[in-house]
């Protein structure tokens, strides 16, 4: 008696997951910037944050103090602005205090993720971006299983260029293959830092690892995003980097990633 057409995700046109084997490579950052870019292209976007231990999404939009309300169909997502063009759901909104730690074992996490997938009243969305924690554990297995009936568009894998990160992301690629999740492409984040003073580019975290991995694995390479202190600061302050800093070094790469996602989505629709 389960009908995907009548569920809370019925009005969502495309679902994409942002994954990485490695922690701290910028999944939440890329998820946020992708959402902002898509909004600027006139799309309605939702972000589902299934990182239960380290929910970063609410902070990145400066709505960490918002509360979640109930309606007939379930939880109402938190809107980032009066336009209601970006909506969010995260465990961060359900905690009594932002510092509260969620120290749960697998089964409890699985139960909440099932609820997050089935019981959030997203309404009509062009894109639902699912931001995940690092690894290939309970959260990932449960999320992919719960989303399977809704046929996600695919996954974006984020890595930093260095060997230890690429190694973990290679594992994540295998995870996608095993679970039948299409890989839309790899993003190489924190790829190079341009000194604001002298414009010398230093590859703090190396360079090219992500691009090589994409070539080796036969998946699209979506681009290199450089380390950009203005981006870090925008995230701290919950600002719209895409709107306010179009001349900043990370902007072109982020815009290109969004464009490729839009192209991929419209190809699939037609």
């Amino acid at each position, binding site marked *: 008696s389960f009908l995907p057409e009548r569920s809370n995700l019925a009005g969502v046109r495309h679902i994409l997951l942002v994954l990485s*084997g*490695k*922690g*701290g*490579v910028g999944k*939440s950052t890329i998820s946020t910037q992708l959402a902002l870019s898509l909004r600027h292209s006139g799309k309605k976007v939702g972000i589902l944050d299934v990182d239960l*231990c*380290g929910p*970063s999404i609410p*902070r*990145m939009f400066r709505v960490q103090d918002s509360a979640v309300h109930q309606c007939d169909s379930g939880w109402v997502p938190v809107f980032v602005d009066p336009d209601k063009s970006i909506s969010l759901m995260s465990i961060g909104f359900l905690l009594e205090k*932002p*510092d*509260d*730690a*969620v*120290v*749960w*074992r*697998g*089964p409890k*996490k*699985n139960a909440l993720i099932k609820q997050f997938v089935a019981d959030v009243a997203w309404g009509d969305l062009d894109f639902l971006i699912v931001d995940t*924690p*690092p*690894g*290939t*554990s*309970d959260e*990932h*297995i449960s999320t992919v299983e719960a989303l399977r009936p809704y046929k996600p568009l695919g996954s974006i894998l984020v890595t*930093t260029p*260095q*060997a*230890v*990160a690429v*190694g*973990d992301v*290679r*594992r*994540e690629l*295998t*995870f996608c293959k*095993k679970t039948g999740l299409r890989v839309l492409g790899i993003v190489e984040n924190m790829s190079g*830092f341009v*000194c*604001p*003073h*002298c414009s*010398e580019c*230093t590859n*703090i*975290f*190396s360079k090219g690892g992500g691009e090589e991995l994409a070539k080796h694995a036969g998946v699209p390479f979506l681009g290199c995003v450089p*380390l950009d*202190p203005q981006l*870090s*600061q925008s*995230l*701290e302050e919950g600002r719209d980097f895409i709107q306010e800093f179009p001349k900043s070094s990370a902007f072109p790469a982020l815009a290109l990633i969004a464009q490729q996602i839009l192209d991929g989505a419209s190809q699939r629709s037609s």
Partner: protein
Amino acid sequence: SSSSRDDSLRDKRAQILSRGLPKQKPIEGVKQVVVLASGKGGVGKSTTAVNVALALAANDSTKEVGLLDADIYGPSIPKMMNLKGNPELTPKNLMRPLKNYGIACMSMGFLIEETAPVVWRGLMVMSAVEKLLRQVDWGQLDYLVIDMPPGTGDVQLSVSQNIPIAGAVIISTPQDVALLDACKGAEMFRKVHVPVLGLIQNMSVFQCPKCKHETHIFGADGVRDLAKTLGLDILGDIPLHLNIRETCDSGQPVVISQPQSDA
């Protein structure tokens, strides 16, 4: 009286909840266990764990140090310590740790193929952690440094419930989202009664090699402020330095290969 009823209810509840929890048992031969955790991913736990283990050994050559990589899903220690291969088994069927630079190491990375993901639910992870702790022939160690995975879940709980931990060190980068998770990490250790020795601020500042201009790429001083709020010591402040990443990628940690550098 209702307050004594509340007390006895609370005691009864604590009794019931503590039944079925594993008893904490020290690992044979290991004197002190220090865990490096963060809550947040990618702040440099493994990098710091490797270099701390090496520094402990370098500071006092009479001490035996071991390094356990408890990150089941993303084991980084093998690459950083330039170690590969399946561990041998001793006659007692314990796994022999792989050694490099004088440090005995064990990691999930030695037990699986490099490209194989570990797609396991929590229960299997618990038993894997148990094996990595107890079914390894550690020998006599003065210090066992445990590199934890990101998060506050199964692995952290399993390790802290299984063995007595001398102390936990929490690493963070300066940005808000990392600090938020570091706070949760500290809270988690409080819940499981593990003392937190202090915080380490990593990736604090980057100095351009060409013009020496300093940029705080990830923000500044966030960890200092958090340490003050939580009443913890800052154990160290590590800058972003090209050598650290280069040496880790090549399996020659900076403490060994470039002891003179800023890091």
